[in-house]
């Protein structure tokens, strides 16, 4: 069964990069451009993975993460928080909210692809 990936990213260029990576991995992916949309789609799709931008309109990544992790239906989604923030407090907040991983921008698409591959293997 093909692993599913939800991409939560408001920056169009970054969204494109993430989609590119997902395509390369052959994942079944979907995109949401604000926090509320991410939460809605995640509940609807319950993906295996969620690449979540920390700063998003309407609802930030941390709140989305917390909501999903507190819900048994969605708590198993492997969440990777992606952010350009250099603030330690953001990472701490994300970890507390239950995020599985934390990736800082700028990232290497190759490295991200490799890591996603590993995770998919682990999930399987």
């Amino acid at each position, binding site marked *: 069964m093909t692993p599913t990936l939800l991409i939560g990213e408001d*920056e169009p*260029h970054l969204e494109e*990069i993430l989609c590119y990576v997902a395509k390369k991995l052959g994942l079944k992916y979907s995109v949401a451009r604000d926090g509320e949309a991410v939460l809605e789609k995640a509940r609807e799709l319950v993906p295996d993975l969620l690449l979540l931008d920390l*700063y998003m309109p309407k609802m930030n990544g941390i709140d989305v993460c917390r909501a999903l992790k507190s819900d048994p239906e969605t708590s198993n989604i492997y969440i990777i928080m992606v952010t*350009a*923030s*250099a603030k330690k407090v953001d990472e701490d907040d994300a970890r507390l909210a239950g995020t599985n991983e934390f990736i800082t921008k*700028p990232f290497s*698409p190759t490295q991200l692809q490799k890591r996603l591959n590993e995770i998919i293997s682990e999930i399987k």
Partner: protein
Amino acid sequence: MQKIFPDTLGFRLPLMVSLVLASLIAIYGYHGTNEETDRALTRAKNQAQTLADNIATASQLLMLDDISKLKEFIASNTAHPDISEIQIYNVKGKLLVNSPSTAIKQDITGKSRSVIVNKKNNIVIWEPVKRKGLIGWIKLDYNIGKLTGVNDAFWKLDVFDSFIIIFVVALACMVALRKPLNAIQTITEFISSMDKHKGMKVSLDFKYAELRELSNALKQMSERLYTQDKTIKSTMFELEMQTYALDQHCIVTISNIDGEIVYSNDKFCDISGYTQEELMDNDHKLVNSGYHSKEFFKDMWETIRKGRVWRGEIRNRRKNGSFYWVDTTIVPVVDKAGNILRYVSIRTDISNRKTYEDQLSRLAEFPEKSPNLIVSADIERGLIYTNPAMKRYMNELTNMGEFPDRLLPENFKEIVSECINDKKVRSNYEVTIAGHSWSWSFSPLAEQDIVHGFGTDITDRQNFERELRKKNDDLEILRDNLEVNVKERTFELEKVNNDLIRADRAKYEFLATVSHELRTPLTSIKSFSEILKDDLETIELETQRKYLSIIDKESDRLERLISDILDLQKMDESEAIWRDKDINAIDEVQSAVESFYGAYKDKGVGLRTQWDVNEVIIKIDPDKFKQVIINLLSNALKFTNEGEVVVGVNVENVVDIVDRGDGGNIQVWVKDTGIGIQQDSTNKIFERFIQLDSTSTRKYGGSGLGLSISKDIIEHYNGSIFVKSEPGRGTTFFVNLPQHDYEADKRREAG
């Protein structure tokens, strides 16, 4: 009696002599008559005895049985004219014969033989009748009336003669005694007159006045003598005692007229330490201590040589060298002719007194020399003593026209009476007058109704205290000021600190934002570069171009961001370069608006301009001016999602917060229909590094530096930038710039 018979010797003596003479005569006459009578009586007695014997014999013979014979016998015998009564009793007491029969019967119990002579009338004889024992008694009463009749005759003859003799003799005596008695009286009167003034009453009860007077006088004399004698004796005794006491108490020496000691008592030896032998014939110089001047002794000698008593206090030296003080009295002993015989020196050891006196005088000096005020007072008189210091200050006050009383506490009188009443000390009454302050205390004197007051000058202390208080006050003020300063400073520091904290936090936020903003385009650049590099062969050409375009745009964005940061840094450190020149503000604004048409069109937000003039010349750095307009347009676009943004330029009717004058204002405004800003945040948005809401700002991107940079630029040109906003309806930014004063430039150039 005394009145009838004068008690003088002149009367009494003749009377006595006469009486004695008369008595002698009487005794002689009486004595002669008595002898006659006694002889007659003896005869009568014998006769009566004989008769009684006869009757007894007869009765014996008759055995008292034949009463008739007895009666007969008795009848014959009683015929005797001198027999008045005959009674015969038997042994049992029965009256056998009673002649005359009227005679009274007698009791014969215990009778003895007796002859009783009753001188005037009769002789009673009791004769026992015996015959072989007592058989009865005979009582015979013999009449002797004739004998007394002889005496009476004699008296009648003699008394008359005697009176005559007495009278004659008395008269003779009186004549003879008159002269000597008068003499005695005269002498007596003289003696007694000598002491009459003493009023001595003598009551010796002599019969004769002369003698009585004389004896009184003599008695007085003797009493006087006795008293004098007693006085002399007691005086002698007292003198002896006094001499003894004097010797015991005083140091006594006697010296001759040359001053050599001829007598010294033990006391002198004791005190001087010299023996009698050492002192004898020596001079008083022996004990000279050298303390007194020569004049002192010269005066002494001059006084005593004149025969006057000298008295003084002398310090002498003992044999062992120590000193002693003596109160000395030197008495010159002078004879009747006025020649000095001796000098008697009487001294008393006053060493102790001298010591006390020294101490006392030192003590007495205390109030006199004390700089403090000392007074004594009582209730009645008020002040009774003031020491010199007190007097001095009182005079000073008087001279100054003040009441000298004002040196004392106001209620001085009450204090004095209270002190005297309760005998308690009172203190700490402060008085300030004429530049001095005094602290008074009052103490009552035990057993006397006097109060002593002591006033101490506390001016210095008070000044000191005042200064101290002032300093203290100053210190307090300083402290208060300091507190205020510290508070103010603390407040300022807190403010600064808060500002710093806020700035620091803003800086941190800024750095985080910068980092975020830098990373975002960098991520795009890096990612697409990597994708193109790795997958160039598999990516379509069109996509490759798109990716390269993204890299290009993001590089621009990165560059702009870096440029902004550098601009800000430059302005911060005043290193910005200003290339001012005259430009048409309308042109610059138009140019900036045109550069945004694409972006606005993309977002679907309208953008238009609004101005009435075509040229507004201002002297300004065109790049900086344009940067401000671009910032505002960028900002408006970021926060406006629908509607339009209008950019305007005004030259007249400029709305300004501050009227800057100087050639009027140019105003550029940018009005949007965006989300708006809360009223309390309208100033905050211009602060550096400050962004209203990090999260929301991220949403709209940008560095948040645009407004801050714009403000710096406008303020450089003495302009102002401000905002009016209504949350939810839109925001208008105004930029006011002073129009350059060209006239001033011309004047400067001409000048």
